[in-house]
Protein backbone atom coordinates (compact mmCIF):
# COMPACT_ATOMS: atom_id res chain seq x y z
CA UNK A 1 0.00 0.00 0.00
CA UNK A 2 1.84 3.06 -1.17
CA UNK A 3 0.01 6.30 -0.54
CA UNK A 4 3.29 8.18 -0.38
CA UNK A 5 3.24 8.92 -4.11
CA UNK A 6 3.40 12.65 -3.64
CA UNK A 7 6.23 12.39 -1.09
CA UNK A 8 9.41 14.06 -2.29
CA UNK A 9 12.05 11.55 -3.39
CA UNK A 10 14.77 14.14 -3.58
CA UNK A 11 16.38 13.21 -0.27
CA UNK A 12 16.36 9.44 -0.83
CA UNK A 13 19.61 7.59 -1.48
CA UNK A 14 19.85 4.00 -2.63
CA UNK A 15 22.81 1.95 -1.40
CA UNK A 16 23.85 -1.54 -2.44
CA UNK A 17 25.65 -3.68 0.12
CA UNK A 18 27.66 -6.72 -0.96
CA UNK A 19 27.42 -9.00 2.04
CA UNK A 20 30.20 -11.29 3.26
CA UNK A 21 28.71 -14.29 1.46
CA UNK A 22 28.41 -12.37 -1.82
CA UNK A 23 24.70 -11.56 -1.56
CA UNK A 24 23.67 -8.11 -2.74
CA UNK A 25 21.39 -6.22 -0.37
CA UNK A 26 19.78 -3.02 -1.55
CA UNK A 27 18.35 -0.45 0.81
CA UNK A 28 17.17 3.13 0.75
CA UNK A 29 18.02 5.81 3.27
CA UNK A 30 17.56 9.53 3.65
CA UNK A 31 20.28 12.12 3.17
CA UNK A 32 21.94 12.53 6.54
CA UNK A 33 21.36 8.95 7.73
CA UNK A 34 24.56 7.11 8.52
CA UNK A 35 25.23 3.78 6.81
CA UNK A 36 24.83 2.14 10.21
CA UNK A 37 21.35 3.70 10.47
CA UNK A 38 20.47 2.21 7.09
CA UNK A 39 21.65 -1.28 8.05
CA UNK A 40 19.81 -1.25 11.37
CA UNK A 41 16.62 0.52 10.30
CA UNK A 42 16.17 -1.62 7.20
CA UNK A 43 17.04 -4.80 9.10
CA UNK A 44 19.73 -5.84 6.65
CA UNK A 45 21.10 -9.31 7.37
CA UNK A 46 24.67 -8.33 8.22
CA UNK A 47 25.89 -10.26 11.24
CA UNK A 48 27.14 -8.33 14.28
CA UNK A 49 27.10 -4.90 12.62
CA UNK A 50 27.30 -1.83 14.82
CA UNK A 51 27.96 -3.47 18.17
CA UNK A 52 28.87 -0.20 19.87
CA UNK A 53 25.85 1.59 18.38
CA UNK A 54 27.93 4.17 16.54
CA UNK A 55 30.02 5.48 19.42
CA UNK A 56 33.42 4.79 17.79
CA UNK A 57 34.26 2.04 20.26
CA UNK A 58 34.45 -0.91 17.88
CA UNK A 59 35.09 -1.66 14.22
CA UNK A 60 32.17 -3.90 13.41
CA UNK A 61 30.65 -1.45 10.91
CA UNK A 62 33.76 -1.58 8.72
CA UNK A 63 32.83 -1.08 5.06
CA UNK A 64 34.83 -0.94 1.82
CA UNK A 65 33.93 1.78 -0.67
CA UNK A 66 34.38 2.23 -4.41
CA UNK A 67 37.38 4.43 -5.28
CA UNK A 68 35.39 7.29 -6.81
CA UNK A 69 33.07 7.43 -3.78
CA UNK A 70 35.90 7.10 -1.25
CA UNK A 71 37.63 10.20 -2.61
CA UNK A 72 34.58 12.35 -1.95
CA UNK A 73 33.98 11.24 1.64
CA UNK A 74 34.54 13.67 4.50
CA UNK A 75 38.00 13.51 6.04
CA UNK A 76 38.54 10.82 8.65
CA UNK A 77 38.86 11.91 12.28
CA UNK A 78 41.55 10.59 14.64
CA UNK A 79 38.92 8.79 16.70
CA UNK A 80 37.61 6.92 13.66
CA UNK A 81 41.16 6.14 12.54
CA UNK A 82 41.98 4.58 15.93
CA UNK A 83 39.09 2.16 15.64
CA UNK A 84 39.45 1.55 11.92
CA UNK A 85 43.06 0.48 12.49
CA UNK A 86 41.79 -2.43 14.55
CA UNK A 87 39.47 -3.67 11.84
CA UNK A 88 40.13 -6.97 10.13
CA UNK A 89 40.90 -6.87 6.41
CA UNK A 90 41.60 -3.17 6.21
CA UNK A 91 41.89 -1.71 2.69
CA UNK A 92 42.82 1.61 1.11
CA UNK A 93 39.15 2.52 0.75
CA UNK A 94 37.89 1.37 4.12
CA UNK A 95 35.79 3.49 6.48
CA UNK A 96 33.50 2.92 9.44
CA UNK A 97 29.86 2.91 8.36
CA UNK A 98 28.64 4.76 11.43
CA UNK A 99 30.67 7.82 10.46
CA UNK A 100 29.60 8.04 6.83
CA UNK A 101 26.38 9.96 6.31
CA UNK A 102 24.40 9.64 3.12
CA UNK A 103 24.77 12.36 0.52
CA UNK A 104 23.13 12.66 -2.90
CA UNK A 105 26.30 11.70 -4.79
CA UNK A 106 26.22 8.34 -3.06
CA UNK A 107 23.02 7.35 -4.80
CA UNK A 108 23.34 3.82 -6.19
CA UNK A 109 26.82 3.30 -4.79
CA UNK A 110 27.97 -0.18 -3.84
CA UNK A 111 29.76 -0.87 -0.56
CA UNK A 112 31.32 -4.14 0.42
CA UNK A 113 31.05 -5.73 3.85
CA UNK A 114 34.49 -7.24 4.51
CA UNK A 115 35.13 -10.55 6.22
CA UNK A 116 35.09 -10.15 9.99
CA UNK A 117 37.72 -12.77 10.57
CA UNK A 118 39.81 -15.40 8.81
CA UNK A 119 37.81 -18.52 8.00
CA UNK A 120 36.89 -19.82 11.44
CA UNK A 121 37.09 -23.39 10.20
CA UNK A 122 40.85 -23.16 10.01
CA UNK A 123 42.47 -23.98 13.32
CA UNK A 124 45.01 -21.48 14.55
CA UNK A 125 48.47 -22.41 15.73
CA UNK A 126 48.52 -21.46 19.42
CA UNK A 127 52.20 -20.54 19.30
CA UNK A 128 51.43 -17.51 17.15
CA UNK A 129 49.85 -14.37 18.61
CA UNK A 130 46.14 -15.26 18.64
Amino acid at each position, binding site marked *: *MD*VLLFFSSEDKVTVHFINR*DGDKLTAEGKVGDSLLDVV*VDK*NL*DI*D*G*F*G*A*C*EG*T*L*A*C*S*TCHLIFEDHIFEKLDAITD*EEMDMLD*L*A*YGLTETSRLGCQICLKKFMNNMTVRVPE*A*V*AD*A*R*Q*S*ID*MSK*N*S
Partner: protein
Amino acid sequence: MALLQRGRCCGAAATTSLRRLVLGPQGRVCESHVCSQYRASSSLPDEKKEFLQNGPDLQDFVSGDFSDKSMWAEYKGNLKRQKGERLRLPPWLKTEIPIGKNYNKLKSTLRSLNLHTVCEEARCPNIGECWGGGEYATATATIMLMGDTCTRGCRFCSVKTAKNPPPLDLNEPYNTAKAIAEWGLDYVVLTSVDRDDILDGGAEHFAKTVSHLKERNSKILVECLTPDFRGDLKAVEKVALSGLDVYAHNVETVPELQRKVRDPRANFKQSLQVLKHAKKVQPDVISKTSIMLGLGETDEQVYSTMKLLREADVDCLTLGQYMQPTKRHLKVEEYVTPDKFKHWEKVGNELGFHYTASGPLVRSSYKAGEFFLKNLVEKRKTKVI
Protein backbone atom coordinates in the same frame (compact mmCIF):
# COMPACT_ATOMS: atom_id res chain seq x y z
CA MET B 1 -14.01 -17.87 22.05
CA ALA B 2 -16.78 -15.32 22.63
CA LEU B 3 -14.01 -12.87 23.46
CA LEU B 4 -12.73 -13.09 19.90
CA GLN B 5 -16.08 -12.42 18.28
CA ARG B 6 -16.95 -9.56 20.56
CA GLY B 7 -13.54 -8.07 19.98
CA ARG B 8 -13.94 -8.10 16.26
CA CYS B 9 -17.22 -6.17 16.39
CA CYS B 10 -15.85 -3.53 18.75
CA GLY B 11 -12.70 -3.26 16.74
CA ALA B 12 -14.55 -2.58 13.53
CA ALA B 13 -16.61 0.21 15.08
CA ALA B 14 -13.51 1.78 16.50
CA THR B 15 -11.72 1.57 13.18
CA THR B 16 -14.55 3.38 11.42
CA SER B 17 -14.58 6.34 13.80
CA LEU B 18 -10.77 6.43 13.87
CA ARG B 19 -10.72 6.53 10.13
CA ARG B 20 -12.78 9.70 10.08
CA LEU B 21 -10.76 11.38 12.81
CA VAL B 22 -7.18 10.71 11.86
CA LEU B 23 -6.88 10.60 8.11
CA GLY B 24 -6.93 13.85 6.18
CA PRO B 25 -6.63 14.27 2.43
CA GLN B 26 -4.93 10.90 2.09
CA GLY B 27 -7.94 9.45 3.84
CA ARG B 28 -9.79 8.84 0.67
CA VAL B 29 -7.17 6.45 -0.62
CA CYS B 30 -6.85 4.57 2.67
CA GLU B 31 -10.51 4.68 3.43
CA SER B 32 -11.56 2.32 0.74
CA HIS B 33 -8.78 -0.05 1.68
CA VAL B 34 -9.79 -0.14 5.33
CA CYS B 35 -13.42 -0.47 4.31
CA SER B 36 -12.70 -3.47 2.16
CA GLN B 37 -10.57 -4.96 4.95
CA TYR B 38 -13.47 -4.71 7.36
CA ARG B 39 -15.90 -6.18 4.94
CA ALA B 40 -13.52 -9.06 4.24
CA SER B 41 -13.17 -10.01 7.91
CA SER B 42 -16.88 -10.35 8.47
CA SER B 43 -17.23 -12.73 5.57
CA LEU B 44 -14.55 -15.23 6.52
CA PRO B 45 -15.03 -18.72 5.14
CA ASP B 46 -16.66 -21.01 7.65
CA GLU B 47 -13.62 -23.18 8.07
CA LYS B 48 -11.54 -20.14 9.00
CA LYS B 49 -14.12 -19.11 11.55
CA GLU B 50 -14.01 -22.55 13.04
CA PHE B 51 -10.22 -22.52 13.03
CA LEU B 52 -10.24 -19.29 15.03
CA GLN B 53 -12.88 -20.52 17.42
CA ASN B 54 -10.93 -23.66 18.24
CA GLY B 55 -7.65 -21.90 18.52
CA PRO B 56 -5.80 -20.72 21.64
CA ASP B 57 -7.66 -18.81 24.31
CA LEU B 58 -6.33 -16.02 26.48
CA GLN B 59 -6.18 -18.59 29.26
CA ASP B 60 -3.62 -20.64 27.36
CA PHE B 61 -1.24 -17.73 27.29
CA VAL B 62 -1.45 -16.82 30.95
CA SER B 63 -1.74 -20.29 32.45
CA GLY B 64 1.94 -20.32 33.39
CA ASP B 65 2.65 -23.82 32.19
CA PHE B 66 6.22 -24.02 31.05
CA SER B 67 7.53 -26.44 28.52
CA ASP B 68 7.59 -29.87 30.04
CA LYS B 69 11.17 -31.10 30.52
CA SER B 70 10.19 -34.50 29.19
CA MET B 71 9.29 -32.85 25.88
CA TRP B 72 12.77 -31.34 25.33
CA ALA B 73 14.06 -34.47 23.63
CA GLU B 74 11.18 -34.31 21.16
CA TYR B 75 11.90 -30.77 20.05
CA LYS B 76 11.97 -30.87 16.29
CA GLY B 77 12.97 -27.29 15.54
CA ASN B 78 16.21 -26.42 13.82
CA LEU B 79 19.18 -26.18 16.17
CA LYS B 80 21.92 -25.34 13.66
CA ARG B 81 21.56 -22.10 11.76
CA GLN B 82 21.20 -22.23 7.97
CA LYS B 83 22.12 -19.32 5.76
CA GLY B 84 19.69 -16.43 6.04
CA GLU B 85 17.87 -18.07 8.92
CA ARG B 86 17.35 -16.82 12.43
CA LEU B 87 16.93 -19.78 14.80
CA ARG B 88 13.85 -20.00 17.03
CA LEU B 89 14.36 -20.33 20.78
CA PRO B 90 14.19 -23.98 21.86
CA PRO B 91 11.96 -24.84 24.85
CA TRP B 92 14.80 -25.41 27.34
CA LEU B 93 15.76 -21.75 27.09
CA LYS B 94 12.37 -20.30 27.97
CA THR B 95 12.37 -18.72 31.41
CA GLU B 96 9.89 -17.19 33.79
CA ILE B 97 9.12 -13.49 33.75
CA PRO B 98 10.86 -12.03 36.79
CA ILE B 99 8.38 -11.05 39.48
CA GLY B 100 8.18 -11.31 43.23
CA LYS B 101 8.97 -9.61 46.50
CA ASN B 102 12.66 -10.36 46.57
CA TYR B 103 13.14 -9.26 43.00
CA ASN B 104 11.41 -5.94 43.61
CA LYS B 105 13.23 -5.39 46.89
CA LEU B 106 16.58 -5.91 45.20
CA LYS B 107 15.67 -3.63 42.33
CA SER B 108 14.68 -0.75 44.60
CA THR B 109 17.71 -1.14 46.88
CA LEU B 110 19.97 -0.94 43.84
CA ARG B 111 18.32 2.18 42.47
CA SER B 112 18.41 3.99 45.78
CA LEU B 113 22.14 3.36 46.08
CA ASN B 114 22.85 4.24 42.48
CA LEU B 115 24.37 0.87 41.64
CA HIS B 116 24.23 -1.05 38.38
CA THR B 117 23.97 -4.76 37.86
CA VAL B 118 25.17 -6.61 34.84
CA CYS B 119 22.02 -8.70 35.24
CA GLU B 120 19.97 -5.80 33.96
CA GLU B 121 22.48 -4.22 31.60
CA ALA B 122 23.27 -7.39 29.68
CA ARG B 123 19.68 -8.73 29.84
CA CYS B 124 20.51 -11.97 31.65
CA PRO B 125 17.79 -14.59 31.31
CA ASN B 126 18.36 -15.80 34.89
CA ILE B 127 17.57 -12.47 36.52
CA GLY B 128 14.27 -13.73 37.91
CA GLU B 129 15.87 -16.83 39.41
CA CYS B 130 18.98 -15.31 40.94
CA TRP B 131 17.28 -12.21 42.32
CA GLY B 132 14.26 -14.17 43.44
CA GLY B 133 16.47 -16.22 45.67
CA GLY B 134 15.96 -19.68 44.23
CA GLU B 135 15.59 -22.82 46.30
CA TYR B 136 18.21 -21.80 48.84
CA ALA B 137 16.74 -18.35 49.31
CA THR B 138 20.16 -16.83 48.68
CA ALA B 139 19.54 -13.84 46.52
CA THR B 140 22.57 -13.19 44.37
CA ALA B 141 23.33 -10.28 42.18
CA THR B 142 26.37 -9.41 40.17
CA ILE B 143 27.20 -5.79 40.78
CA MET B 144 28.68 -3.89 37.90
CA LEU B 145 31.25 -1.37 39.02
CA MET B 146 32.50 1.69 37.19
CA GLY B 147 29.20 2.54 35.59
CA ASP B 148 27.00 0.95 32.98
CA THR B 149 28.91 2.10 29.91
CA CYS B 150 31.83 0.19 28.40
CA THR B 151 34.61 1.43 26.13
CA ARG B 152 34.50 -1.63 23.91
CA GLY B 153 31.89 -2.98 21.56
CA CYS B 154 31.98 -6.76 21.57
CA ARG B 155 29.58 -8.48 19.22
CA PHE B 156 27.96 -10.66 21.85
CA CYS B 157 27.32 -8.06 24.53
CA SER B 158 24.56 -5.48 24.80
CA VAL B 159 26.06 -3.35 27.54
CA LYS B 160 26.09 0.31 26.46
CA THR B 161 29.22 1.54 24.76
CA ALA B 162 30.84 4.96 24.52
CA LYS B 163 34.24 6.34 23.65
CA ASN B 164 34.40 8.37 26.88
CA PRO B 165 31.98 7.10 29.50
CA PRO B 166 31.12 9.33 32.47
CA PRO B 167 33.94 9.59 35.03
CA LEU B 168 34.10 7.15 37.92
CA ASP B 169 31.95 7.72 40.97
CA LEU B 170 34.57 7.98 43.72
CA ASN B 171 31.97 7.04 46.33
CA GLU B 172 31.21 3.79 44.58
CA PRO B 173 33.59 1.54 46.57
CA TYR B 174 32.09 2.83 49.83
CA ASN B 175 28.46 2.69 48.62
CA THR B 176 28.83 -0.78 47.22
CA ALA B 177 30.28 -2.11 50.45
CA LYS B 178 27.48 -0.46 52.39
CA ALA B 179 24.77 -1.86 50.12
CA ILE B 180 26.05 -5.40 50.25
CA ALA B 181 26.36 -5.22 54.01
CA GLU B 182 22.77 -3.97 54.13
CA TRP B 183 21.54 -6.95 52.13
CA GLY B 184 23.34 -9.46 54.24
CA LEU B 185 24.55 -11.28 51.16
CA ASP B 186 27.15 -13.91 51.89
CA TYR B 187 28.41 -14.35 48.37
CA VAL B 188 28.78 -11.47 46.03
CA VAL B 189 30.13 -11.15 42.53
CA LEU B 190 31.69 -7.88 41.49
CA THR B 191 32.24 -7.22 37.85
CA SER B 192 32.87 -4.22 35.69
CA VAL B 193 32.80 -2.80 32.23
CA ASP B 194 36.02 -2.25 30.31
CA ARG B 195 37.39 1.20 31.06
CA ASP B 196 40.23 1.64 28.57
CA ASP B 197 39.89 5.39 29.13
CA ILE B 198 41.27 5.07 32.68
CA LEU B 199 45.01 4.66 33.21
CA ASP B 200 44.94 1.46 35.23
CA GLY B 201 41.69 0.28 33.66
CA GLY B 202 39.92 0.83 36.97
CA ALA B 203 41.96 -1.73 38.94
CA GLU B 204 42.44 0.57 41.93
CA HIS B 205 38.70 1.28 42.08
CA PHE B 206 38.00 -2.43 41.95
CA ALA B 207 40.52 -3.30 44.64
CA LYS B 208 39.22 -0.59 46.95
CA THR B 209 35.69 -1.95 46.69
CA VAL B 210 36.85 -5.41 47.68
CA SER B 211 38.88 -4.19 50.65
CA HIS B 212 36.02 -1.96 51.90
CA LEU B 213 33.73 -4.97 51.67
CA LYS B 214 36.05 -7.25 53.55
CA GLU B 215 36.48 -4.57 56.20
CA ARG B 216 32.74 -4.34 56.79
CA ASN B 217 32.27 -8.08 56.72
CA SER B 218 35.30 -10.34 56.77
CA LYS B 219 33.17 -13.44 56.36
CA ILE B 220 31.74 -12.40 53.04
CA LEU B 221 32.95 -14.33 49.99
CA VAL B 222 33.89 -12.11 47.12
CA GLU B 223 34.28 -13.06 43.50
CA CYS B 224 35.65 -10.54 41.01
CA LEU B 225 34.95 -10.92 37.31
CA THR B 226 37.50 -8.54 35.86
CA PRO B 227 38.30 -7.10 32.46
CA ASP B 228 41.67 -7.87 30.87
CA PHE B 229 43.04 -4.41 31.76
CA ARG B 230 44.56 -4.45 28.26
CA GLY B 231 47.07 -7.00 29.49
CA ASP B 232 48.41 -4.71 32.22
CA LEU B 233 49.59 -7.32 34.73
CA LYS B 234 50.26 -4.73 37.45
CA ALA B 235 46.55 -3.94 37.41
CA VAL B 236 45.71 -7.66 37.61
CA GLU B 237 48.02 -7.91 40.60
CA LYS B 238 46.32 -4.99 42.34
CA VAL B 239 42.95 -6.71 42.15
CA ALA B 240 44.29 -10.17 42.94
CA LEU B 241 45.88 -8.91 46.15
CA SER B 242 42.82 -6.96 47.33
CA GLY B 243 41.54 -9.81 49.46
CA LEU B 244 39.12 -11.48 47.09
CA ASP B 245 38.40 -15.20 47.16
CA VAL B 246 37.72 -15.96 43.52
CA TYR B 247 39.39 -14.29 40.55
CA ALA B 248 37.33 -14.68 37.41
CA HIS B 249 38.05 -13.52 33.89
CA ASN B 250 36.15 -14.81 30.86
CA VAL B 251 37.85 -16.03 27.72
CA GLU B 252 34.33 -16.03 26.17
CA THR B 253 35.05 -18.38 23.27
CA VAL B 254 37.58 -20.67 21.57
CA PRO B 255 40.81 -19.06 20.24
CA GLU B 256 39.70 -19.45 16.63
CA LEU B 257 36.62 -17.26 17.15
CA GLN B 258 38.15 -14.59 19.41
CA ARG B 259 38.51 -12.06 16.61
CA LYS B 260 34.95 -12.54 15.43
CA VAL B 261 33.24 -12.52 18.81
CA ARG B 262 35.21 -10.16 21.03
CA ASP B 263 36.52 -6.65 20.56
CA PRO B 264 39.86 -6.75 18.68
CA ARG B 265 41.62 -5.37 21.76
CA ALA B 266 40.89 -8.65 23.53
CA ASN B 267 42.43 -12.02 22.70
CA PHE B 268 42.84 -15.49 24.10
CA LYS B 269 46.52 -15.32 25.02
CA GLN B 270 46.02 -12.05 26.90
CA SER B 271 43.07 -13.41 28.83
CA LEU B 272 44.93 -16.57 29.72
CA GLN B 273 47.82 -14.47 31.00
CA VAL B 274 45.45 -12.56 33.27
CA LEU B 275 44.26 -15.80 34.81
CA LYS B 276 47.75 -17.22 35.18
CA HIS B 277 49.11 -14.04 36.73
CA ALA B 278 46.33 -13.79 39.32
CA LYS B 279 47.24 -17.26 40.51
CA LYS B 280 50.94 -16.40 40.46
CA VAL B 281 50.69 -13.38 42.76
CA GLN B 282 48.02 -14.87 44.99
CA PRO B 283 48.31 -18.70 45.04
CA ASP B 284 45.36 -19.06 47.45
CA VAL B 285 42.94 -17.49 45.03
CA ILE B 286 40.57 -19.65 43.00
CA SER B 287 40.56 -18.80 39.30
CA LYS B 288 37.52 -19.11 37.11
CA THR B 289 36.61 -18.57 33.49
CA SER B 290 33.63 -18.89 31.19
CA ILE B 291 32.94 -19.92 27.58
CA MET B 292 29.84 -19.30 25.47
CA LEU B 293 28.75 -22.07 23.14
CA GLY B 294 26.71 -21.74 19.99
CA LEU B 295 28.86 -19.20 18.11
CA GLY B 296 30.06 -21.65 15.48
CA GLU B 297 32.80 -23.46 17.38
CA THR B 298 33.48 -27.16 16.79
CA ASP B 299 33.68 -29.86 19.45
CA GLU B 300 37.43 -30.27 18.87
CA GLN B 301 37.95 -26.55 19.42
CA VAL B 302 35.97 -26.60 22.66
CA TYR B 303 37.89 -29.61 23.94
CA SER B 304 41.30 -28.17 23.15
CA THR B 305 40.29 -24.86 24.76
CA MET B 306 39.28 -26.67 27.93
CA LYS B 307 42.64 -28.46 27.94
CA LEU B 308 44.50 -25.17 27.53
CA LEU B 309 42.56 -23.66 30.42
CA ARG B 310 43.28 -26.59 32.70
CA GLU B 311 46.95 -26.42 31.79
CA ALA B 312 46.91 -22.76 32.86
CA ASP B 313 45.68 -24.01 36.24
CA VAL B 314 42.25 -22.44 35.94
CA ASP B 315 40.16 -23.99 38.72
CA CYS B 316 36.58 -23.48 37.64
CA LEU B 317 34.88 -23.37 34.28
CA THR B 318 31.37 -22.37 33.28
CA LEU B 319 29.78 -23.09 29.92
CA GLY B 320 26.59 -21.46 28.73
CA GLN B 321 24.53 -20.90 25.60
CA TYR B 322 25.11 -17.69 23.67
CA MET B 323 21.86 -15.82 23.15
CA GLN B 324 21.61 -12.89 20.76
CA PRO B 325 20.77 -9.85 22.90
CA THR B 326 19.73 -7.42 20.10
CA LYS B 327 19.64 -7.39 16.33
CA ARG B 328 22.99 -5.59 16.20
CA HIS B 329 24.72 -8.57 17.68
CA LEU B 330 25.89 -11.90 16.33
CA LYS B 331 23.25 -14.40 15.43
CA VAL B 332 23.15 -17.68 17.29
CA GLU B 333 24.84 -20.30 15.11
CA GLU B 334 23.66 -23.27 17.12
CA TYR B 335 21.46 -24.06 20.09
CA VAL B 336 23.38 -26.68 22.05
CA THR B 337 21.13 -29.28 23.70
CA PRO B 338 21.02 -29.76 27.49
CA ASP B 339 22.45 -33.26 26.97
CA LYS B 340 25.46 -31.85 25.15
CA PHE B 341 26.03 -29.44 28.02
CA LYS B 342 25.97 -32.38 30.40
CA HIS B 343 28.61 -34.02 28.21
CA TRP B 344 30.88 -30.99 28.55
CA GLU B 345 30.34 -31.05 32.28
CA LYS B 346 31.63 -34.62 32.34
CA VAL B 347 34.61 -33.68 30.19
CA GLY B 348 35.40 -30.78 32.50
CA ASN B 349 35.31 -33.00 35.56
CA GLU B 350 37.50 -35.58 33.82
CA LEU B 351 40.03 -32.91 32.89
CA GLY B 352 40.33 -32.05 36.54
CA PHE B 353 38.51 -28.74 36.99
CA HIS B 354 37.37 -28.26 40.59
CA TYR B 355 33.99 -27.41 39.21
CA THR B 356 32.41 -27.30 35.79
CA ALA B 357 29.05 -25.54 35.66
CA SER B 358 27.55 -26.37 32.30
CA GLY B 359 24.03 -25.70 31.06
CA PRO B 360 22.20 -23.58 28.52
CA LEU B 361 21.37 -20.86 31.02
CA VAL B 362 24.51 -21.09 33.08
CA ARG B 363 26.41 -17.84 33.17
CA SER B 364 29.70 -16.96 34.77
CA SER B 365 28.07 -16.02 38.05
CA TYR B 366 25.06 -18.27 38.00
CA LYS B 367 23.86 -19.10 41.48
CA ALA B 368 24.42 -22.83 41.37
CA GLY B 369 28.14 -22.34 40.93
CA GLU B 370 28.27 -19.94 43.82
CA PHE B 371 26.73 -22.37 46.19
CA PHE B 372 29.28 -24.99 45.33
CA LEU B 373 32.16 -22.55 45.31
CA LYS B 374 31.18 -21.37 48.73
CA ASN B 375 31.86 -24.88 49.95
CA LEU B 376 35.05 -25.09 47.98
CA VAL B 377 36.46 -21.85 49.36
CA GLU B 378 35.51 -22.83 52.89
CA LYS B 379 37.21 -26.19 52.35
CA ARG B 380 40.38 -24.50 51.17
CA LYS B 381 40.40 -22.10 54.09
CA THR B 382 40.23 -24.86 56.66
CA LYS B 383 42.86 -26.99 54.92
CA VAL B 384 46.27 -26.77 56.49
CA ILE B 385 48.71 -25.49 53.89
